[in-house]
């Protein structure tokens, strides 16, 4: 299979992602029937349920699936290779949006005893196949929802005649040519209709392109997604021009996963400096606060006007201590370079040290993995 052929397949699936016409239900159901006929062990397709929106589709799957549907898809997955999730484009956004409903995204693996001891499992089925909901990251792996890169890969494999379950794969592709999601249960196929409208949110003149999409469904439901994260209308409005958000707004106005994404896009150092040390110290999420403090840098932290560190001075330097509510203190030692610069001044530098050091001497000694015996006979 040539690269250009594969690219053509992928492009076709990306274009298909923007289809907002009502699904051709007769064609989709005919393809689903073929899928059941090929699968054999599903007992044939007795009933088709159509969901009018992604959330409705997710609800149906959640209510009706007792594990066998996933088992079928797992068997199906074993016939194919791993494909990385789609990185961008409307098709990827569609897959992310679908996956954000949680139950649609699952990781399959052989269960082992450690998982059961840790309680990290949902249910052991008779074949020891466990499924764990993992969210959006697995969207490229799921065969039953729309993911252009994976679907193009299926086409490649079909064309090369390498698929052991080609009938099922071909039927699955035909289903997804008509609608964005499909879930097979014994006797019952669940299919999802196309959205009636897909529009990017964000002002057209925004300097940073928004990656948000609004899906309007025929049921009247409207759902908004930003980087695959389901958001409210108010949040979508804020995210429509992310370049206008202040650092403080990023830290204070958003849910953790949105905040993490905004910080990743803007850069932790930019956000930390923009917000100021005082605001960073008040971040409730310990992991995030530490990340921002590290990005801020020890010197900037000491001299930020929002922070008033305690200081201890001796012949070896100055030790600064900043108390962080609910976390360990931040200790920074300022050391003078013993050799003067060409203009006669002495350059200083700042090093972070553990919170249990008490003096500048102890702090500098720690930086060389020494204790109270630190006393160089010469230093330059």
């Amino acid at each position, binding site marked *: 299979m040539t690269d250009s052929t594969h690219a053509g397949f992928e492009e076709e699936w990306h274009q298909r992602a923007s289809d907002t016409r009502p699904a051709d239900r007769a064609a989709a159901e005919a393809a689903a029937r073929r899928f059941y006929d090929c699968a054999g062990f599903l007992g044939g397709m007795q009933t088709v349920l159509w969901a009018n929106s992604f959330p409705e589709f997710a609800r149906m799957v959640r209510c009706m699936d007792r594990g066998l549907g996933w088992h079928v898809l797992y068997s199906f997955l074993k016939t194919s290779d791993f494909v990385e999730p789609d990185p961008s484009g409307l098709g990827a956004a569609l897959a992310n949006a679908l996956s954000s409903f949680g139950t649609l995204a699952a990781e399959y693996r052989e269960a082992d005893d450690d998982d059961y001891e840790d309680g990290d499992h949902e249910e052991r089925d008779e074949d020891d196949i466990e499924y764990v909901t993992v969210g959006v990251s697995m969207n490229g792996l799921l065969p039953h929802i729309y993911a252009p890169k994976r679907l193009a890969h299926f086409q490649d494999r079909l064309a090369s005649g390498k698929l052991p379950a080609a009938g099922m794969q071909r039927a699955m592709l035909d289903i997804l040519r008509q609608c964005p999601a499909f879930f097979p249960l014994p006797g019952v196929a669940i299919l999802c209709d196309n959205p009636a409208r897909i529009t990017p949110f964000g002002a057209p003149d925004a300097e940073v392109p928004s990656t948000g999409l609004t899906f309007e469904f025929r049921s009247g439901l409207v759902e908004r997604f930003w980087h695959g994260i389901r958001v409210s209308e108010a949040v979508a409005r804020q995210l429509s021009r992310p370049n206008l958000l202040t650092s403080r707004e990023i830290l204070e106005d958003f849910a953790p996963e949105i905040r993490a994404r905004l910080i990743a896009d803007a850069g932790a150092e930019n956000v930390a400096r923009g917000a100021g040390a005082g605001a960073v110290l008040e971040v409730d999420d310990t992991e995030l606060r530490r990340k921002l403090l590290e990005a801020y840098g020890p010197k900037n932290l000491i001299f930020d006007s929002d922070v008033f560190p305690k200081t201890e001075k001796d012949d070896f330097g100055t030790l600064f201590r900043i108390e962080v509510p609910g976390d360990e203190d931040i200790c920074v030692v300022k050391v003078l370079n*013993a050799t003067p610069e060409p203009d006669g001044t002495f350059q200083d530098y700042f090093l*972070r040290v553990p919170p249990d050091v008490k003096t500048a001497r102890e702090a500098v000694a720690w930086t*060389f993995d020494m204790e109270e*015996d630190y*006393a*160089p*006979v*010469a*230093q*330059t």
Partner: protein
Amino acid sequence: MKTTYRQGDILFISMDAPLHAHENTTGSLEIAQGEVTGHAHVLHAGAIGFDTDWEKRVSRLDLPQGGTLRHDEHAPIDLPPGSYEVRRQREYAYGKSTPADD
């Protein structure tokens, strides 16, 4: 108390026992290259025995005739004859230590 010599972010600790070095050179040996500044700490000596750590950095020195440590941004330091352990400055980051930037 151990006798120590410091040039910027490098510390030399005089060792009580003589070192039986695995490698030898004469003239000069680069002890550390500043990743930020690009300036190196270079030891000049007639005879230099040395060992390296798992990161291939000079970790111990044997200087039977002593030597002089030079760096573009620091005054030189004379090291008397003897054996030395070489330590690099580190920083703290939430339970971990990382090499200090130079």
